[in-house]
């Protein structure tokens, strides 16, 4: 199986699906002529031409809404935001149109659209460019949310998303784009949504993560292994639907859980996971569920402070030990 980068896996997914289905097209800022702000769509303009790889002006609300309208009448757009931060100006389109049209039309119209972009912190890009936006969107019924952590999942989940008849939001990470991993070449390689992956089996504590933080959690688990602590790392892969069964099965085994992810601690996906576990596996818990999240402040520019604010392996290790009453 060839080893390719995360960004190439995304491109493979889009290219395969565009080849498979004429209705699929890619639209976003800098996706064509510039070859992609993060080079995810490199070469796609040459391959598919300007009709299907479309450079958009800086008008997120405009082209997000345009994609939704096109999807309503049968096209299957992939809308790339340069980053999820910029989706905030298109939030109304996603909240009030993409997520609502099916229900408020009594089920007459569906919106088969994919929005995708890098998300979360990168490296010293400051407070306005470091948002973990998945928490805002995961709250909205009508949307599906994926957050692949590996190149293989990037390909398999994005392909599934493009084939889905609902609006799907794909949360990538700038720091994952160059990560390499084995990715099946199969054009029918699909990773279903709503099935978490046990990235590392263990028996002592369950660490639940998604996207970039899965790698941080695996790093923490490797270090804890040397201290005799056997951590199970669960990569959620999709946040909505959320694979509650896998979480509960794991917690029934370990009796302890730590949720790790980017994003502020107030509410959000982490809080939702904690709620489900405490509600559905109360009798399995031997310790309060710990959360390791972005510190509750806007992202600072200063490199050291930024690292302090972002979830780190050391923070996950501390939380694991607290859940074992060893801290």
């Amino acid at each position, binding site marked *: 199986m060839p080893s390719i980068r995360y960004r190439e896996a995304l491109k493979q997914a889009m290219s395969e699906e565009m080849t498979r289905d004429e209705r699929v097209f890619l639209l976003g800022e800098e996706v064509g002529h510039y070859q992609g702000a993060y080079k995810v769509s490199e070469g796609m303009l040459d391959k598919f031409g300007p009709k299907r790889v479309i450079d958009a002006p800086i008008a997120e609300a405009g082209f997000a809404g345009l994609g939704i309208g096109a999807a309503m009448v049968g096209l299957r757009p992939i809308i790339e935001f340069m980053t999820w931060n910029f989706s905030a100006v298109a939030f109304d389109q996603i909240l009030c149109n993409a997520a609502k049209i099916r229900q408020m039309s009594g089920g007459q119209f569906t919106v088969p659209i994919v929005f995708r972009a890098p998300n979360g912190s990168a490296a010293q890009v400051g407070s306005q460019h470091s948002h973990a936006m998945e928490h805002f969107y995961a709250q909205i019924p009508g949307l599906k949310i994926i957050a692949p952590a590996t190149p293989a999942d990037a390909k398999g989940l994005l392909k599934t998303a493009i084939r889905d008849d609902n609006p799907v939001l794909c949360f990538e990470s700038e720091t994952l784009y160059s990560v390499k991993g084995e990715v099946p070449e199969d054009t029918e390689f699909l990773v279903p949504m709503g099935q978490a992956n046990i990235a590392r089996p263990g028996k002592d504590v369950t660490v639940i993560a998604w996207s970039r933080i899965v790698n941080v959690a695996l790093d923490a688990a490797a270090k804890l292994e040397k201290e005799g602590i056997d951590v199970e790392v669960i990569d959620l892969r999709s946040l909505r639907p959320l694979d509650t069964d896998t979480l509960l099965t794991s917690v029934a085994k370990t*009796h302890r859980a730590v949720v790790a992810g980017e994003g502020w601690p107030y509410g959000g996906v982490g809080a939702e996971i904690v709620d489900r576990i405490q509600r559905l596996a*109360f*009798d*399995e*818990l*031997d*310790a309060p569920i710990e959360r390791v999240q972005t510190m509750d402040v806007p992202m600072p520019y200063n490199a050291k402070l930024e690292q302090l604010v972002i979830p780190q392996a050391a923070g996950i290790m501390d939380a694991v030990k607290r859940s074992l*009453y*060893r801290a």
Partner: protein
Amino acid sequence: MAKLLEMPKLSPTMTEGQLTVWHKKEGDSVAVDDLLAEVETDKATMEFRSFDKGTLLKLLVPPDSLVQLGQPVAIIGEQGEDISKLVPTGGAAAPKQSGAAKNGEATEAQTAAASRPSAPPKATPDAPQPPTANATPNATGTGTATATPTPTATPTANAEGSMPSPDGRVRASPYVRKVARERSIDLSGVAGSGPHGRIVAHDLERAPALPSGRALATHAEADDVRPLSMMRKTIARRLTESKQTVPHFYLTIDVDAAPIARLREQINEDLAAGAPRSANGDAPAPLKVSVNDLLIKACAIALVRVPQCNASFTPEALVFHRRVDISVAVAVPDGLLTPVVRQADRKSVVTIAQEVRDLAARAKAKKLRPEEMSDGTFSISNLGMFGIDAFAAVINPPEGAILAVGKIRAEAVVWEGAVVAGQRLAMTLSCDHRVVDGAVGAKFLAELRSLVERPTQMLVL
């Protein structure tokens, strides 16, 4: 055909409106969309326009009326039409101006009644009392809830970690509770190492061997499962704590009980002779002294003679009590209680007998006050009346020792070279080795033997 005009909904949230002014009067002709009245809604003053054409035959509410949504306000129809059937009778259509005020008053009155202070909470002497309150040795001044922290607490447990919660509630993680349910583990006997004494999974590994580890559920049909009473929980917790954390050792003596038995008989004969009698013979049964009462007195004197045995262990210091307060184990229907005879060394045997009789009666009736069951310095447990020859008792922390008394046995003894009928009594002292060493315990028992075998000493002290 005449019809009622009803108060329309003029805003999404409107439930009633103040009809402030009529723009038409009775007899006026009305076209569709004509302004009929103005209505103040929760949002704004709105125009009430007609959906119908005709003649306004009757106004049903005066201006400035508060009108409910859908309530008739006017009748519209053809000039001269009979509207008697449409005019509401009685006060049905009356606006709510005055009604609202009345309701307000009523509500206020109800509120006043509801908020009247209730009687102070009744004291509940009937409530079951714990067998022994967690004693706080005054001398230590640590303010901790017990004087015997678990020496086996792991180094990772924090300072407050190993303490049972002060309110007596067992704190355990949900998972621990589930396991305890499944395996019938009594969590009151498990020391928690988590925050605030929380029992966590790790603590279960150190819990006493589980009764064959069988699950309750599979035998639920056969077994009589009774929820733990508060008393049972406390007994379980405290005695487990004692046996797990207090290093017990045992010293046994077997004494000649004939002298004390004889003394008891003599005292009781005198008491019977001196008891008041009433004409009709319904006087209360005369007081009798038991061997146990005599032993309480004997122990009290022995403790005065060997004060090292009247002691408690605390992590900071050994505490030697200046008072001799003897806890007496009393069996009650669902457990046992240990009321305390205070300053037994200074009380006569008869006084002790009276006190024990009173304490035991109230123990069985669950009427003992907590302070009557706490702060003893030494315990006596007597199973002689149940036919037990000899046994060893579990120390009642923070006391340093407990004396287990068997029955007086009639058996052949060798006396001055001849086998004669004798009376023997076996007593076992359980000692907390942290504060009472073997030699001290032996010295105490020597004194006790001397007192029991020559009981007149008790009378001169």
